[in-house]
């Protein structure tokens, strides 16, 4: 498969050749839009912010954004295959509760704890994938039900909020060096170590192919089953990294259903704002990162504009609706009405 896979599934005519024009794929345009919205929002935030964009302000924003960004990246992988993961929030909370129990003590046991947390996340995701693929069930309901299971386990680990975490590690993960937040570096590392190699691997390309057309992918001999299981497993891994970061930020673990739901739902929003198609086959985890930062900056903007913070869900909802409405502007361009009905 030599053609760029991102363009599969779009049916646009080639753009007229202009001078200095850069041909962007739909997914790249999505990322660009998300980056632009984020840049504008954050600039307004920095401008209205009384103390200006100090290293501390940037660090706090980055820490908050990185949490959702990791969960949103986790959501992206199943979505690319045309699926969905409603359990990312639960895995995130489970990783948080587990980390608050075992990522403690001397460096060796802390390191082992981190590995265990990531492995559990990977295992949760892989379980989702295996049930979906080999049980031949709908991702929506499987991840909904498995999410309940993971949350139940998290509750067993932490009936009451509490626990602790290795202080040096937590401090290191949430600090910034030369105004560069470590949480942003963590995101960059995740992109470099997990996302890009995955994107270039056979299962990664297969995920895009499955999302575009599972039938066609099957007939071209793409390893559908393995690619799907890996997509869900990596999704669990990424959500667990998010849970680990949450533990570092809060120094504790808490099994709250509202946190799990909040992150799951917002992750879907971030994925859409980041230009990933919910029908699969098109998009990128990079877009989701910026989508997540857009969602989180909405809350910050409310604070600097002195709007009652209880209105945050309202504004997040409006941003979400606006994002999908921008996405559906294509409806206006469609000449043959039949094209509306996929």
């Amino acid at each position, binding site marked *: 498969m030599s053609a760029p896979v991102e363009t599969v599934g779009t049916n646009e005519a080639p753009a007229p050749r202009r001078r200095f024009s850069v041909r962007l794929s739909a997914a790249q345009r999505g990322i660009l839009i998300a980056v632009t919205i984020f840049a504008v929002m954050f600039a307004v935030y920095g401008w209205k912010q009384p103390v200006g964009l100090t290293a501390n302000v940037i660090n706090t924003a980055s820490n908050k954004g990185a949490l959702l960004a990791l969960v949103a990246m986790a959501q992206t992988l199943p979505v690319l295959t045309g699926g*969905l993961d409603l359990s990312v929030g639960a895995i995130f909370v489970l990783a948080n509760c587990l980390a608050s129990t075992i990522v403690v003590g001397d460096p060796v046991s802390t390191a082992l704890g981190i590995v265990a947390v990531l492995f559990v996340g990977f295992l949760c995701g892989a379980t989702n994938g295996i*049930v979906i693929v080999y*049980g*031949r*069930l*709908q991702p*929506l*309901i*499987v991840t*909904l*039900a*498995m*999410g*309940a*299971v993971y*949350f*139940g*386990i998290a*509750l*067993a680990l932490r*009936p009451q909020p509490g626990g602790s975490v290795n202080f040096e590690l937590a401090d290191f993960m949430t600090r910034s060096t030369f105004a560069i937040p470590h949480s942003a570096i963590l995101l960059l590392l995740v992109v470099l170590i997990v996302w890009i190699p995955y994107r270039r691997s056979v299962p990664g390309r297969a995920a895009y192919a499955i999302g575009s057309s*599972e*039938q066609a992918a*099957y*007939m071209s001999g793409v390893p*559908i089953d393995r690619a799907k299981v890996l997509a869900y497993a990596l999704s669990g891994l990424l959500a667990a990294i998010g849970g680990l970061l949450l533990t570092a930020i809060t120094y504790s673990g808490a099994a709250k259903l*509202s946190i799990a*739901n909040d992150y799951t*739902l917002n992750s*879907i*929003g971030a994925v*859409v704002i980041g230009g990933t198609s*919910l*029908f699969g086959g098109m998009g990128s985890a990079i877009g989701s990162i910026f989508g997540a930062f857009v969602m989180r900056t909405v809350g910050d903007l409310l604070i600097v504009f002195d709007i*009652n913070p*209880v*209105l*945050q*869900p*309202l*504004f*997040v*909802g*409006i941003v*979400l*609706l606006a994002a*999908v*409405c921008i*996405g*559906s502007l294509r*409806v206006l361009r469609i000449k043959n*009405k*039949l094209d*509306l*009905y*996929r």
Partner: protein
Amino acid sequence: MGPVDIILRQFDRATVIAFACIVVLLFIGALAEPAFLSPKYLVQQLHVASFLGVVATGVMLVILLGHIDLSIPWTIGVGGMMATGAAGILGPELGVPLAIPFGISCGAAIGFINGLGVAYLRAPAMIFTLGMNAVAQGLMVYHTGGFAPQDRATEFMRELAVGHLVPGVPNPLLIWLVLGAATMFMLNRTTLGRRIYAIGNQERAVFLSGVDTRRVVLICFVISGACAAAAGVLLAGWANRSYQAMGDPYLLPTIAAIILGGTNVLGGRGKYIGTVAGVILITILQSMLSVVQPQRYFVQLGLDMPADTFRQVVFGLVIIAMLLLYGRNQRVTA
């Protein structure tokens, strides 16, 4: 064709298995707690189930179309809070009779916006209804935070939720029966019903045969919003007050009940009677987990775990297990 035939024709494999699972659950429950088979307990379960049943009725229509409605939790909240709010703000003469219609029409309005977005803007239902859920949440939180509205249910709402118009049959169950019968009739006997199934299977074809498919989608979302709000009104009457997040525990059980009842998430296939079975099954499962309290056995083993753990874990595992029993998809082939 007599009414019995119509009901019998409704049964398919999924429905039969779901009903069988209900019997098995009751049997297991009766082993631990003989009171499980008493009429009092069973009627009480149906009473609790009818709230979920009303919500599931609307959502099922949307799922039959191949869409989904994630705005359920806060539409329930809107229904309850707007009804009690109207009663308080408009005063006893005007507010009390208008409370229920007002609450339900607010839910219908949310459904209307959902329908516009999904049908006319072609936005993915999942994300659009999710956005509406957040917007409804924001508005309701503002509504309760900005000024002090009335949150007490009216006497009539209370009567609707806990009273018995027919002796032995709680009113919500009666409402669910009527709503369910109407929905069954609509799905099986009317053009709208046929179109809903047809759109779920192949929207293009239905559009080509001259049907305004967008209007059908819009109608279903309005019904879904209205049903959720109606359940909110009932729940407010049941608790005698409305409160934030009153709809939160309903999203997962609703979708699970519909899918366990044999409705395909991708649309086009599913029987209403299956949803009825799914709703009862979920309700009994939840009730059993709180009555039997499996954590007691683990305490004897030295493992102290919160009751919610079992409710969540067993709930999820049972849904997966039952889906594996009968909800499997076709394998992708050439």
